[in-house]
């Protein structure tokens, strides 16, 4: 790198290096800059979040009345299949990979990811996955209608008899998404192990980096199982093998093991970085160090380990023998210990602090509250006798939406608001942010809380029609669903208008401690002209100690 002045407050927000595509077009190019790729991931996946949300609103529209009268049953089944698939494979995973992509190199003091081209290649597979998924609406028979689990034998039934059908496209999309995620995981783990700045030991890394490491290790050991299961299912459909085909001796339950061996840990792939986000944001807005930093950091890896040995709790009702039910009940419940440690640590972090309730803090606090609730219903589901009643009911749907929406989406919103000034060099509008927060929280509660009582009453998930006794709670949930759809409008308005004409942000508007806050907003290409030399643990709020020993060289730019 040549000597480049780092201009934190220059009027020109373009990334100042010679010959760089210094305009919005760089986001449509095969850029290898981790910051460009991070934003590419975030924006692309947000588009699919809106698509998946539209499907959800069609689902909630159908369920506002007991009869199946809004859409045909096949269309309804396609809707919940595609809602789940899009929300997971095209929103939750890629948006968090995007955040990690943007933040991890900055937080560990690296100039880029370990393999920048691999990074770009992994991103550009996401639009391919999206196009494959969406194109399944235009093939005979329509998209996959077997749910996002794609359990055989239903997923093997192919009523149109054509080779190119929705299920085949779905499986191809999932397999490509898996390859993309494995490429990302290799990159993250290598980056975190090899590219840390001088002095950045493991116990000086921010917890977000710990959680990304923990999550990406899960991708490495878990995804091969899902990908293998998907390929076997693809062979069963297209070439007539019978891995899972019962009529010719296959075992459909075997697929469930392949599927859940990855897809339960996958929840932690999503949740862990969000725990990292909470651990980053709470100390900043409470002006106190993260309580029990080392334990919180290590508990992430304990979650990684435990996540590999709990998958059968999704299969308590699947003809699973009693001893296996009991074994997995114990392992499942034990996950509450490391997650409990995190929750208590966050609580202790803000206790006695000096709180400022800006939008990121509001989303983080509400995310923690929702997560406590989801954790409690999770323990209930882990208990075999209770699960025998509520398995495959709306109680489960309510539980995991408290996780994926109440916790993970809240964490994502918190992160986007918190790092928005860093990413764009502009401040967002606080008022719009608060409107967005309250609409989202009320919508979430109204949408997902009623699913618990209706599940206890015995309403199965995935039904297009239901008995009138469930109508009351479903009306509430549908209203909440439409409110959540509405809640994205102030967010989009805020993001677009702030990026275009928001107030200029300084290099550290939150007075936060962290390497990313020592450099300009937005950071220059390759981030650090001089690599920082880290001398302190993160979160030194109230301690008045320097984070790096060469601060002067880092910020010699005009302030």
């Amino acid at each position, binding site marked *: 790198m040549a000597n480049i002045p780092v201009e934190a407050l220059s009027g020109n927000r373009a990334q100042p290096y010679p010959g760089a595509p210094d305009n919005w077009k760089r986001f449509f190019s095969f850029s290898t800059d981790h910051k460009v790729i991070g934003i590419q991931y975030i924006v692309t996946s947000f588009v699919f979040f809106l698509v998946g949300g539209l499907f959800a609103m069609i689902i909630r529209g159908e369920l506002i009345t007991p009869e199946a009268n809004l859409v045909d049953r096949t269309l309804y089944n396609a809707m919940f299949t595609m809602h789940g698939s899009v929300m997971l494979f095209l929103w939750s995973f890629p948006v968090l990979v995007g955040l990690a992509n943007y933040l991890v190199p900055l937080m560990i003091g690296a100039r880029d990811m370990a393999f920048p081209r691999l990074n770009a290649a992994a991103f550009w597979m996401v639009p391919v996955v999206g196009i494959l998924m969406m194109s399944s609406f235009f093939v005979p028979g329509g998209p996959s209608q077997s749910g996002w689990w794609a359990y055989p034998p*239903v997923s093997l039934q192919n009523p149109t008899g054509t080779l190119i059908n929705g299920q085949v496209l779905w499986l191809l999309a999932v397999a490509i998404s898996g390859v993309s995620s494995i490429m990302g995981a290799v990159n993250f783990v290598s980056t975190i192990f090899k590219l840390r700045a001088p002095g950045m030991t493991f116990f000086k890394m921010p917890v977000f980096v710990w959680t990304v490491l923990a999550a990406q290790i899960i991708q490495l050991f878990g995804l091969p199982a899902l990908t293998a299961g998907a390929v076997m299912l693809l062979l069963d459909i297209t070439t007539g093998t019978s891995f899972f085909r019962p009529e010719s001796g296959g075992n459909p339950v075997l697929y469930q093991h392949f599927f859940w061996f990855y897809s339960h840990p996958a929840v932690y792939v999503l949740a862990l970085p969000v725990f990292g986000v909470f651990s980053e944001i709470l100390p900043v807005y409470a002006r106190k160090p993260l309580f029990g930093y080392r334990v919180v950091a290590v508990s992430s890896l304990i979650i990684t380990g435990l996540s590999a040995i709990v998958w059968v709790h999704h299969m308590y009702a699947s003809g699973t023998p009693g001893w296996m039910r009991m074994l997995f009940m114990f392992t499942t419940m034990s996950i509450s210990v490391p997650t409990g440690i995190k929750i208590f640590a966050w609580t202790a972090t803000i206790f006695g602090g000096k709180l400022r309730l800006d939008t990121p803090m509001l989303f983080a606090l509400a995310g923690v509250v929702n997560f406590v609730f989801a954790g409690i219903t999770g323990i209930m589901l882990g208990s075999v006798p209770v699960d025998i009643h509520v398995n495959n009911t709306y109680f489960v749907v309510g539980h995991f939406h408290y996780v994926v929406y109440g916790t993970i989406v809240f964490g994502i919103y918190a992160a986007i608001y918190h790092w928005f000034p860093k990413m764009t060099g502009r401040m967002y509008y606080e008022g719009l942010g608060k409107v967005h927060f309250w609409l989202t929280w009320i919508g979430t509660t109204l949408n997902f809380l009623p699913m618990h009582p209706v599940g206890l009453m015995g309403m*199965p998930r995935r039904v297009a029609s239901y008995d009138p006794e469930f109508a009351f709670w479903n009306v509430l949930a549908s209203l909440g669903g439409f409110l959540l759809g509405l809640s994205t409008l102030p967010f989009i308005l805020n993001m677009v208008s702030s990026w275009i004409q928001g107030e200029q942000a300084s290099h550290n508007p939150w007075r936060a401690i962290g390497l990313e806050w020592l450099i300009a907003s937005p950071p220059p290409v390759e981030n650090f002209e001089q690599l920082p030399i880290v001398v302190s643990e993160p979160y030194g709020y109230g301690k008045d100690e320097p984070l790096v020993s060469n601060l002067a060289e880092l910020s010699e730019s005009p302030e």
Partner: protein
Amino acid sequence: MKMRLIVTLVGATILLTLASLWMGQQAYSWFPPEASAESKLIDDLFSFLVALGTFIFLGVTGTLAYSVLFYRAGRYDYSDGPPIEGNVTLEIVWTAIPIALVIWIAGYSYQVYEQMDVRGPMEMVHLHMPETMPAAYAQPLETGGLPSAEIAVQAKQWAWIFHYPGPGGQDVTSTELHLPVDHRIKLALTSDDVLHGFYVPAFRLKQDIIPNKTIDFEFTPTRIGTYRLRDSQYSGTYFAAMQADVVVESPVDYQAWLADASSRVPSPAYNRASFEYNRSAEQSVVRGWATVPPAPPPVVNYAPKQAPDSPPA
């Protein structure tokens, strides 16, 4: 100061405990009626979990709310809070308590599961604890002179068919599941095509049905009435329509019903999936995507001609 802290903590704990016990009692009202011996066990366990969960939820969120209310930075106060980085004693306590709770909850759940004993002896591998629990059999099978034979449950896209051994050894079929109250019921679950789930919310019991496999399932209905059986494992297009009535009746009524059913000539029963499929085949404008065609309405001895009409729970 110290004294005041202790009083506050004790007071908060008492309040939380009362609220939690109250919520635990409320939990019973969130369920359908308790119509099986197993449902009582599960409701008690769930009530316990609700009470415990309420305590934890209110404890954590109460502390968060207290912080949000009373530890706000002043408008121009840009100072930092106290640099407390941790407290080893506290961290050990909040690791040890969850471990103890997990062992307690899992142990209690294990005991309840042993008592339920819902899977047939062929499938069940007992991991007996030192004190084994007596199973929750309301009465031994043979009482009342009832046939102790199994009822075979046949699931297919999208119909339930129940097979009873008739008085003369013939196969008596029905699309309504009739059961004698207070007797241990043994079901043999089979599927003709895909995965299905046998789920009666009033019994709190559920079991997936797997093609090419016969799954034994047992339980004890304890309350006379009509309840709803639903398919709980997604089975394709008409999944939601795959429902049936479960009629729990006195042994005398049950015997009379069985005798009556066995004397009837088989006829096609009402089947919602097939009804809807035929109706949509007549429509030419709005049609969904191609679907696996539903099986024709089952031809059974006891063949209700209308949709299941169990009362709301």
